């Protein structure tokens, strides 16, 4: 199995992306991970980190019927 990518934890810059819904800058923190879910504090949508290099996010998928605890 392939372990997923992690941003360089030693690099403590706060990484930012533009929300694809409202274009406001969203902080991904210093060590985002692919498939991490991050909320946009401006418009409330959930974003999924799809790539770290280049940094890219998409709208997170809608809740599916079998999702949960």
């Amino acid at each position, binding site marked *: *199995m*392939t*372990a*997923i990518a*992690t941003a360089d934890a030693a690099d403590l810059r706060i990484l930012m992306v533009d929300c694809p819904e409202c274009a406001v800058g969203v902080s991904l923190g210093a060590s985002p*991970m*692919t*498939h*991490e*879910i991050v909320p946009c504090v401006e418009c409330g949508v959930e974003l*999924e980190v799809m790539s770290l290099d280049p940094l890219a996010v998409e709208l*997170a998928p809608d*809740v*599916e*019927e*079998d*999702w*949960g*605890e």
Partner: protein
Amino acid sequence: MTRLCLLVDRIRVEEKLLIRSLERRRDVEFDVVALPDVIFDPVASAERRYDLVLNRTLSLTRGLAALEMLEAGGAVTLNTREVVARCGDKVSMSAALARAGVPQPAVRVATSPEAALRALDELGYPAVLKPAVGSWGRLLARLRDRDAAEALFEHKATLGGPQHGVFYLQAYVEKPGRDLRAFVIGGRTVCAIERRSEHWITNTARGAVTAGVPVDVEMDRICRAAALAVAGPEALIAVDLFESPDGYLVGEVNATMEFRNSIEPTGVDLPSLMVDHAVAVASGGIEARFGAGAAA
């Protein structure tokens, strides 16, 4: 050195907290493996790279498929596919609780709208219709009378897929504005919260407010019995409880529980306890703590 795999499909706050706890362990090496990136081969995947796979998948269907493949390859999983399947299907969960004599609200399962209406006549109104598979309070319906039930069943028959052909009906428990959730880790009830809401659905996903509550002797006994019945001695689960005039009733048992809203109110470092437990299971050191008093 213990080698752990954190199996995810998305990384939410809970998984981040687990990762932080794993990072603090000097005796653990771990990878985070995301389902969207993985291909499984049941023949070739003798997956012994890890001492244990800690399952945190959000999708029940995809998680079960992954656990099936991993276990076929020899992986030790927590929770196991069997436990996740049983917790993910309320019919299976209620059956397991019933077999063990663990108190739960009266339940009826029917496979046709006509039988479901007869079941409601037995249970009485109001009653709650729940999808057998589902979470976060989705698609729950409180049925106050037969008219409402007939309308809802017609909608399900018209709109629903095969899964909606199973009618899981539960007696409505008049709650004191809250239900309870207790966390059971390796046979210990480590903490509990209340989930308070003015709405009859008290899931935190629906806005319920949490606060810590003490674990009393009876709550501990019921929760450990529920854990043993549904998930076995290595259980890593959350037990939802209703307070009824007859005592605690187990509403459901969750195998991939969320805990972000339970750490601060209880003061219990749940992700670290989960990691500790995973390491113990991985090293074969877990000791079942269920005694004779665990039976409900």
